[in-house]
Structure formats: C-alpha cells, structure tokens
C-alpha cells in the first residue's frame, strides 16, 4: 500500500513550479496536506509557529536552491537554528534545475539534506524517497 504523508512543504520562488509539484503530489496521493511557499522567509515563519491540526508539521520539505533574497543554502542555515521539534519530520530534499557540481557537493555535506534531485518532481522519485525514508521505519 502506498504510504501517504501527513504534510509536505514545497519551497520554490517560481509559482508555476509549486503549482505543478502540488498537482503531482496530489494526483499521486502522496500527502494529506501540501503547503507551498514562494519565499524561504515565509516558510521559516511557518516552521517557527506552533503545530496543530490546521498548522501541521511537515514531514518532508522540497527546497529550491536558487531563490531570490534567501536562497536554499541560507534557508538551511536558519533551519539549523530551529528547535529540533520545529524542523521537518524527516527529510529535506534539495531541488535544482542544473546539476551544478558545487551544489551537489554542498548538498552531500549538509546534514539536513537527504537527497538532491533535478526538477521537476515525478511520481517515480517521490515513491522512491517515501519508501526509502518511511516504509523502512515500519
């Protein structure tokens, strides 16, 4: 049976990308809630808030690297300063359009970044990470 996560957070400055990823996630039935943010600051604000029914804690964050103002790396710096319970449940996945070797290396070194993937998200990759990080726990 396919695992459904409670909440997935998408952070990408490109609105159509967020819309598309939301469609992929929803059509694939991967998450109960999909939260999208067009800026890293707003996403951090959300993470700093108290979690409840309407304000669910994300299990998984998809983070774009190349964003204006606060980019993916800067987001991760802020993210590190959050309390452990404020952070996402499990996994942060970095998304990028081009496989820049510098970014790849940095992603591999960052403790919060579990995966690095080229955009766009597709069902195959989503199933893969969900089975890798969630189904194995059961």
């Amino acid at each position, binding site marked *: 049976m396919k695992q459904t996560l409670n909440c997935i957070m998408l952070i990408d400055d490109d609105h159509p990308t967020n819309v598309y990823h939301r469609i992929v996630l929803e059509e694939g039935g991967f998450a109960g809630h999909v939260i999208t943010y067009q800026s890293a600051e707003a996403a951090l604000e959300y993470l700093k808030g108290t979690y409840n029914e309407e304000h669910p804690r994300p299990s998984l964050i998809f983070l774009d690297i190349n964003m204006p103002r606060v980019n993916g790396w800067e987001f991760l710096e802020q993210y590190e300063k959050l309390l452990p319970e404020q952070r996402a449940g499990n996994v942060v996945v970095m998304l990028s359009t*081009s496989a820049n070797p510098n970014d790849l290396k940095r992603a591999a070194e960052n403790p919060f970044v579990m995966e690095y993937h080229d955009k766009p998200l597709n069902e195959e990759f989503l199933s893969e990470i969900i089975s890798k990080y969630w189904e194995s726990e059961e």
Partner: protein
Amino acid sequence: MLSFVKNYLLERPDEQRLSWLFLYNKKATISGLVFLFLTFTALSLVDRFYFAADYYSKLPTPTATPFGWDSCFRLLFLPLANLLAIGLLCRYKGKSSNYLSWVSSVILLLTMLSLVFSGVTQTYYSANDYTWEVVALIVFTFTMFGMPFRVSFFISFIMMLSGLAFLLFDKVEQRVVIYNTTFLLSIWFAMIVGALRKAELRRENYKTVNLLHNYTLELDAKAKELSQKNQELQQFAYASSHDLQEPLRTISSFVAILERRLSGQLTDDLKTYMGYIQKSTERMKHLIQAILEYSHIGRNLKLEAVNCQELLELIVDDLNYSITNAGAAIHFVNMPTISCYKTEFSMLMQNLIGNAIKFRKQGVAPVVSITYTDEGEAHHFTVTDNGIGIEVKHLEKVFALFGRLHTKDEYEGAGIGLAHCRKIVEIHGGNIWVESQPGTGSNFHFTISKKLNQIANETNAQLHHAH
C-alpha cells in the same frame, strides 16, 4: 658631493673593480688619459722651470729631456699598456674579467720592472723614488687582481693625500711626489668617471629590470583575470542553464498536464500543436544541455593510458543500437595505447563514429574505418566513412558551435557534436580537420599530442600561478 660619494662610491657593491672601470667606456678611458696627460705636462713644466731649474741645468745635455718626456712616457705607459692589454684580450669573447686582470697585471708588472731596472729612472731619481714606485705598483696590481673598488679607491686617495702632504712639508722630494701624486690622481679621476658611468648603467639596468618586473606583474594580473573570467563563464553557463531550463520545464510540465486532462477532447490539429510545443521544448532543453556540456569540457582533466582498441570496442558496444539499426560496419585494428584524457577522448571518438553512421547515404550501409598513424610528435587518427560527404565550402563550418548543414528534419542534432570534438582535440594539443567528397564520404582527421604531460603541467602551473 658627499651624497655622490655615499651613493655611488661607498655603497656600491664589491663587484665594481678598477680593472673594469678603466675600460668601462670610451668616455672614462679617454677623459682619464687626457686628464693625466694635461696635469702631468703642467706639473712637469712647473717642475722643470720652477722647482728644479738648477737641477736640470746641471745635467749633461744629451740625457736631459727638456719637458720631462721620459717621465711622461713612464707615467703614461702604465695605463696605456694596461689598457692595450685588456683591450686586446677583450676582443676574445669568453675570457673572464679575472683572467684579463691577471694578464694585464703581469704586463704591468713587467713594464714597471723594466722601467725601474732599465736605468731610465735612475737618471733623475734617488733611491726614495723606488718606494713610491713599488707602492704605486702594488696598488695598481692589486686593483688589477680584482680588489674591491672601494678599497682600491681609498688606498689611492690616501696615497694622493700623503703625496700632497709630502709636497707641502718635504721640499727635497717634491719632484717625485708631484709625479706620483699626478699618477694616482689620474687613476682616481678615471675611477670616478668609470664609477659614474657604471652607476648610470646600473640605473639603466635597474630601469629595465623594473620595467620587466612591471611587465611580469601585468602578465600575472592578466593571467589571474583570465582564469577569473573563465570561472565566471563557467558559473554563467550553470546559471543560464538553470534559468533557461526553469521556464522550459514549466512549459513541458503543464503541456503534459493539459494533454492528460484534455485527452479525448483534443482535435488532431491541437494534438499536433501540442506535439510541436513538447518537441520544441525538448530540443531547447538539449541545446541548453549541450552548451553546458561544452563549457564542461576541459574541467577536471585526468591524463591516463588508454588502450584505444579496447576503448573503441566499448564505444561500438554503446552505439550498438544505432549500428544495428543502420546496418553499419565499424573497422579498426591494432589501435595503440596512448596517453590522453579518457572521458573526453572517448566522447570524441563516439561523436565521430556516431556522425559517420548518422550522415549515411540513403540505401547504403555505412562502413566506418578508424586508422592510426604515428607521426612522431603526435598520434594521428582518421575516421573514414562512406556517407553523404561535405561540400568544400562547408568544410570549416562543420566545426562551429551550432553549425548545421541540414534541417532538423533531415538529420537530428544540436549542431554541437563537432564543436565538442574540436574543443576536445584542442585540449589534447592537436588539430582536427576534414577531407570530403560530396556523395562519396568523409575523412575526419585529428591529432593528439604526445607531450600532453608537459602541456598539462604548464597549464596547471599557470593556473596555480594565477590563483
């Protein structure tokens, strides 16, 4: 004056030696000699008619020389003989200054001795004269041996002062003192002129060195700038590929969603148009990818020994699909093992073989043969095909970035394969060119330098330097 003494005479390094100062240039030599001659003539006249008029008048007429020509000869002979000797020896290149000093000193010594013992001097001077002669001789000889300029300069200076003191306090020996003082004075004078000239030369040298140094700095800066620009360009390629791909990806993503959601409602026309959008975005994606790859060539190069036979067999395996599809035959035998950048070299071969298969004649099974010639300094490979060939006027165009000779419908491709090839061959220190007969086939030639190691080292050194 003080600053002159300080700057040019006292603080000069020991490399300045009297033997060279005399010869430093014509100016120093001639002015030294003229000074010597004039002073001596003047002093000997004073000596002859004022100080020692009585003495001379008592001498027997035949031996007396009216203007002291014998003494004049004696004094002039020293520097003249020395100059002559060094000047002659200087004509023979490769003789070291030390060697010249030795020879000239020996000549000088012999001259002096011959003068002292020939009796010429005994006609006029008492035994005391010899002391002076010997001291002067020692100074001169020592300087000729290569005594530091400063030392010889001060010895002669002190001797000159003491000579003047003699002149003032000891009337008996004044004649001799005058001669010797004049002699030392002339040496001193020539030394100053030589030192000045040398200082001038040093300044010129310094200017040249400075200029060179500036040039080197400038070159360094240029190299640094270049490597920086290169890096910027790489970053630019990444950034632009990222930014260019983003909207493309969005287009193709949403076209896919539209197609899915509208399936069943689309007319055939609309389906075709959707297909155009999809295909164009795909092609654009490939182009961007190709630019990125192109900018990648030459990064992280690793030189290794590559068995070309094995490599080509691997490539043929990789191209199996298109080879079978086209019914192509690929021939290569006895390929060598060469030192090259494996990944890039393999890409080069794959591109050329791929092209040979792609640009085949309709209805003719492609035959591709790869041959090798050892050209001493370089490895020379040739990829020959029986394809469509290239017209002479287009021969150069095929290697240009995005250079295409055919429409996309005729032959697929981004027009970047041979541009890649050229860049790869360039990093291998070689050339790539093509001979072709339209309708008969093409021969693609390329060379790989055998001195790649050296080239790589130099490039690394430059990069290292630049950083």
